[in-house]
């Protein structure tokens, strides 16, 4: 067997785990002057490390070919993660993690990456299995990121007012659902949705007007650049001044933010139709609107969706930022900006998590519609190679 055929990730995992057994697990307690914990005292961790060494070396030779092997690796990684967490909290390593601990985390990292890799490259004609695999990959990756966050924050003893660990954020999230729901309603349902629809809708219409009237295209587009570059920080106070403290001013900020990406993309898209296709429509003496609806808009769809996707994230950010500049005392931005001042950083992160969830779902919905509406685009064609 040649060197290149070895599974490098598993090799790294095995070596890192082996070193983890050798290096000290934790640092020295400042008060007692003693080392906080030893691997030898923690049977669970010792087993996990040993498992990593054994499985790592085994799979280095065998290779991780099948999904089953990937699952085995992930299972070992999950066990390892569990042990790592328990060491931190039950054996008081939090804040005192040493090189041994971090090497163990590195070993787990290699395992997780390899396991996700296998599942990501899984192909099946069975749709449910494929969907499941496509779902598991980002989730596993995300869970891993959360784990790393948790471990790094408590391992290094990062002050909670700088960055709380995910476990704490999660707890806060679950315990504050009523506040979160009210904020969500104020910011997302009222401000974001209306601002998004108005911003994208008006930009779309203006794009068509601009396209129709070359005079406007030459006159408005260069100025459009400038409007988009108006920093929200500057615009938000003005909008609050004009449209009041409630959601209307937030929607106005969103309209301004989303307008330009949509305008630029739509105008570009409207010119994306091929020359031959335009000639074809010309031979039918197809009128402006007919060509627009039958050729140019369909051809522009990939661009339009591009803007819709970018805007779906911009809109939420815009609303939250605008709430920093005056709001009634509800809303995600309001909560974030006040709770920072109150040092309730876990609440801040709970809101951020909510924003991320809502924004990702919003984006996902737009992406789903895109997939349905522009399935003809080469980028969605089933890739055979």
């Amino acid at each position, binding site marked *: 067997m040649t060197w290149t055929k070895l599974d490098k990730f598993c090799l790294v995992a095995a070596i890192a785990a082996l070193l983890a057994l050798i290096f000290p697990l934790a640092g020295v307690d400042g008060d007692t002057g003693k080392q906080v914990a030893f691997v030898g005292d923690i049977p669970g961790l010792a087993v996990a490390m040993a498992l990593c060494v054994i499985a790592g070396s085994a799979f280095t030779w065998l290779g991780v070919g099948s999904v089953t092997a990937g699952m085995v690796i992930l299972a070992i990684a999950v066990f390892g993660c569990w042990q790592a967490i328990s060491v931190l909290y039950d054996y008081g390593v939090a804040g005192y993690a040493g090189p041994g601990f971090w090497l163990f985390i590195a070993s787990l990292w290699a395992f997780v990456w390899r396991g996700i890799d296998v599942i990501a490259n899984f192909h099946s004609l069975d749709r449910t299995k494929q969907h499941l695999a496509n779902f598991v990959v980002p989730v596993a990756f995300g869970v891993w990121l959360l784990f790393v966050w948790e471990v790094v924050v408590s391992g290094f003893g990062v*002050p*909670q*007012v*700088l960055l709380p660990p995910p476990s704490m954020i999660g707890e806060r999230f679950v315990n504050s659902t009523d506040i979160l729901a009210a904020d969500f309603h104020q910011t997302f349902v009222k401000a974001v949705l209306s601002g998004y629809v108005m911003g994208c809708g008006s930009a779309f219409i203006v794009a068509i007007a601009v396209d129709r009237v070359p005079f406007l295209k030459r006159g408005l587009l260069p100025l459009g650049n400038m409007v988009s570059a108006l920093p929200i920080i500057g615009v938000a*106070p003005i909008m*609050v*001044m004009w449209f*009041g*403290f409630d959601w209307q001013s937030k929607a106005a900020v969103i309209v301004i933010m989303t307008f330009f990406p949509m305008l630029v993309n739509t105008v570009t898209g409207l010119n994306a139709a091929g020359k031959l296709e335009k000639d074809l429509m010309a031979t039918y003496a197809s009128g402006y609107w007919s060509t627009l609806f039958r050729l140019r808009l369909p051809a522009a769809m990939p661009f339009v969706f591009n803007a819709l996707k970018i805007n779906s994230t911009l809109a939420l950010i815009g609303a939250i930022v605008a*709430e*920093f*500049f*005056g*709001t*009634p*005392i509800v809303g995600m931005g*309001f909560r974030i*900006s*006040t709770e*920072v*001042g*109150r*040092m*309730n*950083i876990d609440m801040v992160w709970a809101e951020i998590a909510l924003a991320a969830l809502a924004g990702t779902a919003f984006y996902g919905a737009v992406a789903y519609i895109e997939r349905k509406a522009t399935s003809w685009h080469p980028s969605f064609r089933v890739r055979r190679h």
Partner: protein
Amino acid sequence: ADEVTLQLKWVTQAQFAGYYVALDKGFYEEADLDVTINPGGPDVAPPQVIAGGGADVIIDWMPSALASREKGVPLVNIAQPFAKSGMMLTCLKETGIESPDDFPGRTLGVWFFGNEYPFLSWMSKLGIPTDGGENGVTVLKQGFNVDPLIQKQADCVSTMTYNEYWQVIDAGIPADDLKVFKYEDQGVATLEDGLYVLEDNLSDPAFVDKMSRFVAASMKGWNWAKENPEDAAMIVLDNDMTGAQTEKHQVRMMTEIAKLLGDSAVLDEAAYQRTVDSLLSGGSDPVITKEPEGAWTHAVTDKM
């Protein structure tokens, strides 16, 4: 020289004139200190900065500092240059507000970001709910300026005697048309700009020594500023990197600030206790839940 980084609570203005004067006039240098002053802003939470190691000493209001202490940032007050509170609620007379009894049903602008505690304890003392109901008040999170009052989006807004109040005056509304409620007068005053450090550091005598030199030099700066308000304002202007402040405003601010300064930097225990009691009395939602311990020390001022 020993390095000291000071994190201000707000942007460069005469509110912090003493420190800038001390820097500019070389008082810090005389005390063998190399001081860096970092301005704050609407986004800067000084407790967070000091917890992250971005500063050695911060300026904060006591309610916010005590609340942070409960949240795990072990802040300790080492000196209290400001003896009085400059906070007030400014209302338009035409709205018919004469006394706190007229508040229910009104819209009030309040600063948040840790500055809402005095207001909240005042309201709970008055027994007025802040949830926007029929017999409560509707609270707005006020931005940085007094526009909500001028544009009549709010009936009252929060102002400082030394800053926002004059912005209202500058906007063309004469003092006669305004009704102000000073927190001092309402008996709900809490301690404002104080100097805070992390508790752990105080066990190091060298640090305490450094801080006592720092506080002493700063107080020297404050005394100089009190006596020379115009020059102090100019020093502040020189240090304002944004170039946005005006001389007129800063001189006026300096004069008002002078009225809030105490005779020394030593924390008055009675004032401290008054602040704590006010914060604890918040009804169902007090700012702090238990009597803080070790939240102040005279160790630094004693060494001066």
